[in-house]
């Protein structure tokens, strides 16, 4: 077996932040599943089997023998990603049991019923953008507050607590903070979430967290409920915020595509699906093998080996479609993608995320039909190396 080569499996093409690095397309063509070294801020550099084809990605992500949660360690400090209640730390029956407690909130019917609430939040952010004036940062004023306020509604965060809640959420997602700052922030976050859980224990609110306490409170510890709240905050927040910012940036750079989103309401659902496929903000998904098995004919993955799925390049696999998947085409029939993952862990909140995107993006471009980058010559400040792709700042004018 050749020595594994260092390949940042989250790498994007130089100068084209939406495109996978050329090296990812190269290994996609290889017959054998390659072992690569993956640089990771959480785990240091580790060896992993690289999954880059669409069909392999689906097989790997839906295979029970590949497990989640290998970053979980009870001996390490409690963090948002290292605590009970977080679905990402569970597998098999434990995962299913916990997930079923939450799925009632995310049915198609329930998510549709949330539309007026989401529209109200989007309207308020558009007014805030107008008020902030020319040069306002779309990330700060629009993309980030929308999912935060939606999750506040779902968790039942009282209005007077929202500023503090949002500030802690922002710190929790800020990659420029120190580990110590993160630990302190998480303590504050946990303390707040504990008061919220206690309030719901006293009188369960008419929202997601209240519903979980009402229906399953006897089966769950306070610790687990705090973890569930934190998980929903993080999972429902950063990815949707990133999708809103990155979609706006991408569409501003592709005015013909933007015009379709703005002017053709019947094209919006398909356009959102195309943006999800193309942007894939959660760029990679890691797993670990619980036993030896074959993913493809003759390709053995050994127990304990790590596997990393590149969502970014799997969504562009030329063998999965007769269309050119490197082209952004918001009007094409939706192409299957693994942006929300696949298998039992497929994103719990995906229908909510879609609804937020479907409401917010057309509304933005209709309210400000002349929306443009403040400085047309300025390069957009993309966040290309973080685990979740996004845009750091997007100053706009109209």
């Amino acid at each position, binding site marked *: 077996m050749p020595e594994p080569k260092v390949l940042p499996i989250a790498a994007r093409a130089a100068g084209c932040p939406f495109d996978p690095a050329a090296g990812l397309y190269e290994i996609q063509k290889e017959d054998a599943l390659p072992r690569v070294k993956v640089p990771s801020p959480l785990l240091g550099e580790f060896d992993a089997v690289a999954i880059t084809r669409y069909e392999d990605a689906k097989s790997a992500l839906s295979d029970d023998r590949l497990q989640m949660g290998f970053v979980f360690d009870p001996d390490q400090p409690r963090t948002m990603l290292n605590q009970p209640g977080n679905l990402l730390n569970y597998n098999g029956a434990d995962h299913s049991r916990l997930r079923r407690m939450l799925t009632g909130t995310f049915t198609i019917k329930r998510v549709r019923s949330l539309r007026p609430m989401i529209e109200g939040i989007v309207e308020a952010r558009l007014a805030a953008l107008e008020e902030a004036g020319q040069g306002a940062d779309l990330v700060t004023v629009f993309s980030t507050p929308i999912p935060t306020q939606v999750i506040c509604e779902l968790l039942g965060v009282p209005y007077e607590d929202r500023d503090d809640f949002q500030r802690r959420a922002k710190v929790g997602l800020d990659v420029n903070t120190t580990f110590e700052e993160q630990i302190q922030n998480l303590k504050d976050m946990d303390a707040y979430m504990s008061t919220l859980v206690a309030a719901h224990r006293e009188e369960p609110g008419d929202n997601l967290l209240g519903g979980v306490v009402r229906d399953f409170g006897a089966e769950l510890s306070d610790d687990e409920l705090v973890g569930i709240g934190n998980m929903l905050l993080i999972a429902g927040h950063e990815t949707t915020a990133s999708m809103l910012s990155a979609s706006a940036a991408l569409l501003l750079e592709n005015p013909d595509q933007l015009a379709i989103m703005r002017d053709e309401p019947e094209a919006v659902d398909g356009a959102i699906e195309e943006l999800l496929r193309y942007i894939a903000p959660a760029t990679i998904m890691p797993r670990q093998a619980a036993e030896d098995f074959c993913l493809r004919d003759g390709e053995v993955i050994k127990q304990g080996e790590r596997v990393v799925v590149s969502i970014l390049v799997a969504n562009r696999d030329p063998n999965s479609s007769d269309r050119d998947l490197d082209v952004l085409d918001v009007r094409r029939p939706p192409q299957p993608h693994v942006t929300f993952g696949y298998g039992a862990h497929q994103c719990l909140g995906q*229908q909510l995320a879609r609804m937020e995107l479907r409401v917010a993006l057309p509304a933005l471009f209709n309210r400000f039909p002349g929306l443009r980058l403040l400085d047309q010559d300025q390069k957009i400040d993309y966040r290309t190396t973080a685990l979740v792709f996004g845009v750091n700042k997007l100053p706009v004018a109209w």
Partner: protein
Amino acid sequence: MQVEIDEPRCVAAGHCVVAAPEVFDQRDDDGVVVLLDANPPDDEHEHVREAALLCPAAAIIVRDRGGAP
């Protein structure tokens, strides 16, 4: 066409309800798929196949009568 559901596998992603709302629904309390029509009419077949294709948990089983896939 004969449709079956492997209920314990369902992860309530909701794709089936979007693809074929005449054939699939979701239980209110846990979002688990509800089969509305196990023998959907011809004009639903394409939607049902799409639902089965998109289901991340492979919880929808489609059998064609007369053996044709």
